[in-house]
Every structure is written in structure tokens, then in C-alpha cells.
């Protein structure tokens, strides 16, 4: 059971990594196309800026989930290191709960907004405005998964010593 979970997680991380790389390259490509079409071909693209910004939203929230898993988000671990082990663990559990609570609210909110926004159309891309929030929704879902894992880890107190600056 745990092994299947681990394998599923590894696969998911791989997929997200590849998606993120493609999004980064696509953003660069789209923005470069915008420059070329505007300045060299003198016929500005109407959809390039919207697409790049849409990718930016997706990259931010999918990427945040990956970075939360890798503990790459900026945090200050200086003070908890001074705490005695029992208090340190308590701080970790509280911290994990806080992150989980926020991620749940983010995901729920993204769902609500995506639904309300589904009627309106983005002027340049001619697709539903909901796509912007679907990125937040998917990223939020992944963030929830990562923070549940972190909470379980904190409660078990297993890999507690892991930290990043």
C-alpha cells in the first residue's frame, strides 16, 4: 500500500516537472513571438500576452506545489532550531496545519471562482476565463496533497530533521 503510494507520488512529481518545463519554454516562446510579430512583422499578436500570463498563473501554482514538496519556499528555521525537541515538533505540526488550511481555502476558492468565471470569455484567446482559475485549482489540489503528507510526517515525527534555508 505505502509502496504503491510512493510510486504514484514519484510519477506525479515527474509529470508536474515536465509540465512545468514545457510551460516555462512555452512562455518564453510566446513572449518572443510577441516581440517578433510586433517589431519585425509589424502585426502585433492579440493572444500572446494573455497566453503568457495564463501560463504564468499555472506555473506559479503547480510550481508552488512542487517547491513545497522540496521545501524550497522561503522560510526561517533559525528560531525553531533553538526549541527543545518536543516544542519543535509541536511547531511543525501547527505549521503543517496552517499550510494545509490555507491550501484547502485556496483550492475551494479557485473552484468557486472558476465556476462563476466560466461564462466570460478572455478577449484575446477567445477561451473561457475559467482557465486562469483551473490552474489555481489544480495547483491547489496538489498543494493540499503535499501538505497532507507534510502533516502526517510532522505527526509521526519521522523525517523531522529535514530542513532547507
Amino acid at each position, binding site marked *: 500500500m505505502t509502496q504503491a503510494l510512493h510510486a504514484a507520488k514519484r510519477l506525479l512529481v515527474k509529470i508536474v516537472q515536465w509540465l512545468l518545463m514545457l510551460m516555462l519554454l512555452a512562455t518564453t516562446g510566446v513572449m*518572443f513571438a510577441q516581440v517578433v510579430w510586433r517589431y519585425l512583422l509589424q502585426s502585433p499578436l492579440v493572444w500572446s500576452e494573455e497566453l503568457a*500570463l495564463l501560463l504564468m498563473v499555472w506555473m506559479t501554482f503547480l510550481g*508552488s506545489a*512542487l*517547491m513545497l514538496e522540496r521545501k524550497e*519556499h522561503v522560510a526561517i528555521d533559525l528560531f*525553531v532550531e533553538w526549541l527543545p525537541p518536543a516544542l519543535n515538533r509541536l511547531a511543525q505540526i501547527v505549521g503543517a496545519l496552517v499550510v494545509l488550511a490555507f491550501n484547502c481555502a485556496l483550492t*475551494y476558492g479557485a473552484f468557486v*471562482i472558476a465556476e462563476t468565471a466560466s461564462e466570460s470569455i478572455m478577449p484575446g484567446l477567445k477561451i473561457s476565463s475559467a482557465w486562469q482559475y483551473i490552474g489555481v485549482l489544480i495547483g491547489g489540489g496538489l498543494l493540499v496533497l503535499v501538505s497532507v503528507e507534510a502533516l502526517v510526517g510532522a505527526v509521526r515525527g519521522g523525517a523531522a530533521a529535514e530542513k532547507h534555508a
Partner: protein
Amino acid sequence: MSIVLFVLLLGLIVINVPIAFAIGFACLSYVLVKDINVALVAQRAATGIYSYPFLALPMFVFAGVLMEHGGITQRMMRLANAVIGHISGGLAAVTVAGSALFGALSGSAIGDTAAIGSIMIPAMKAKRYAAGFAAALQGCSGVLASLIPPSLTMVILGATGNISIAGLLVGGLVPGLLMAFLLIMVSLLISRRRGYGKGERATWREFVAAVSDSVLPLLLPVIILGGILGGIVTVTEAAVLAVVYAFFLSAVVYREVKLTDLPEISMQVLRIAVPVQLIVAISHLFAWIVTTEQIPQQLTAFFAAVAPDPLTFLIMLNFLLLLLGTFMESNALIIILIPILMPVVQQYGIDPLHFGVMFVVNLCIGANTPPLGVTLMTAAKIAEVRFAEASRAVLPFLAAMIVVLILTILFPQLSTFLPSLFL
């Protein structure tokens, strides 16, 4: 209510909650207490990053990482070495000059510290420079990247405070060069007194080779700044051109980056850019609350009572910032404080460019002040020296940086003159 919000935020940061999520949770509590629709959290976060100027952020990081992998760093170091490597304490001067040159390409302080530090710190240690000195010098040189264009910090500051990004990028140049100059002077004085060795004088042929080898990379800041200042492209478009040019140099001209390197390169870009993007997204929510709670108005009233003129206000503010900077990360400070402070700054009639550049100079000092000087920490890790030792060695350099801060506060022209010429 606003006091509770800040106390909660600080408390969460202290117990090691990542700053972005700490801000997010504090805002969520506010939204829940005030019985506002929770969907606001997602809506503000998504629209916060849906912003054209911020697109420059991942692009500048991308260009910097490509440069690092493409062998540009070594070329910058060779150039710096050929020019000033032979004087006594030459390696120290090369560290500063190289960091300034590479900072003009990469734009990120920690990236600059890591990239240059991994070359220069071992070199300095091999020449019997004290490891603490090497770490302290590199930490302080690394922050030059946030003053010398193209700087990520300036992009974030401009987009958050609604200040001209192009103006900020150019405005940081003079204080940045001044800081580089003073850091070189201080390190030369210390090196002389302790008898740190000099490097070999470059032969004429080596000198020519180093210069001609650096011409193509050094065109990059010219393209970026020229494009922005000439009003030809936006900052975001200039950033994309920088990526394309950096890719062209690394993959086609120098052939040091292959297509198979792209996964590793993009992961490095995402590691640097995404955490900042999330902070940007979530603080958009924070800014909404700050406005709703009328915190700037309260702050304006407070400062009006205690600081009668702009200079007193700036001096008080800088003391507060130096204090906060010792334990807060720079981007988080910008994003939390700028929405609160900008209305106050306008009330005093202070030029936003002057204020912005001064703010960044102050953050440069914070990034090297214990207990949480992030660039100093990065440099100390590379030098394999205890943070406490690096913290002692950093004091003379901090003094030099404080001189730059004082000059920037007293003479607004240092930050506003160049932008006024172009923009």
C-alpha cells in the same frame, strides 16, 4: 484588527511556516473573521500574478541561469582578473568587480553569490585569504546584483509599488557602482594590512583574449538597457530578448549548453522564480486587506505626528528597515511593506525612484546582517566557514555599505539623475 494580523503573521514566520503561506493564512483568518467570501483568497492570488510586468521575473532568472551554465561566469571572472588581478589583494578586487559584471547579467543576489562565490572563494582560500573574509566579501558583493541592472529586486519593487520599473533599474546603477567601488577600497585596505597575495599580471595577449572573449556577453546589458531606455521594448520584452540571446550564446556560440541540459536548467529557474511568484501572488491578497483596513492612513497620521519633514521620516524608516532586514527576507519585506509605505512616501512628497533605490540599498545591508543574512549565509556555506566567523569579518564591509545608504538618503540625485536623463 491590523495589530492581530501582524502578530499572527510574525508568529507563523517564527515557527518556520514558509513566508508565502504565513501571509496567506493570516489573510485567510482575516477573511474568515470579517465573514468575507473565502473565494476572495483564490481570486486575489490568481489576479496578483496575472500581471504583465511580473512576467519579466522568470525571464530574467532564466537568462541568468543560462548564462551560468553557458560558461559566461568564467569569462566575466577572466576579464575582471585581467584588469585588476595583479594588484595586492587583487583577488578580492576581482571578486567585487566580477560580481558586479555578472550581476549585470544575472540580476539575482543569491544566484550571483553562488555562481561567483564557487569560483572566487576557493581561489581566495588557496591564496591564504582568511575564509571568513572571503565569505563576507562575497556575500556583500553578491547583493550588487540587486542594484546593478537588470535587477529582479527592482522589478518586484516597481510592480508592487507601482513605480516605473525602467526608472528603478537605471536609478540603481550609480549607488551600485559606488558600493562596488567602496567594497573594493575596503577589501584592498584589509588585504594590504594582512599581506594577502597578489595575482599574476596578465600578459598583453591574455588581456586582449579576456576582453574579446567578454564582448558578446557584455552586449547583453547593452541590449536590455538600450532597449528599455530607448523606449523600444518593455522591460518584460527586454527580459525575453535576454533569454533568447543568452540561449544563443550558450548553445550556439560557446556550445556549453545542450538541449539535454534543459530539464536541469528549467528546474533551477523554477526553484528561484516560483517561490517569489507565490509570494507576489499571495501578497496581492495582503495588499487588499491593508487597503481595506486603511493601514497606510493610520501610518501617515503616525508619521505626521513624529516626523515633521521628509528627511526625519526617511531616517526613522531606515532604522526600522535595517532592524527588520536582519531577520526578514528581502522580497517578503518589499511585498509586505511597499503597499503600506508608498502612500506615506507620497504624502511627504519624496520621489518614488529615490525612495525605491534607497529601500533596495537598505535591503542589501539586511541581506548581509546576522542572524539572517541570506547572501552572507550562502557565501559562508561555500567558504565552509562558521556563520559567526563570517559575521565578524563582514563588519567593515557593512560600514562601507552604510556609507552608501547614507549618501543615497541625503542625495536623491544619486538615484534620480540618470533616470531623468532618459525617461
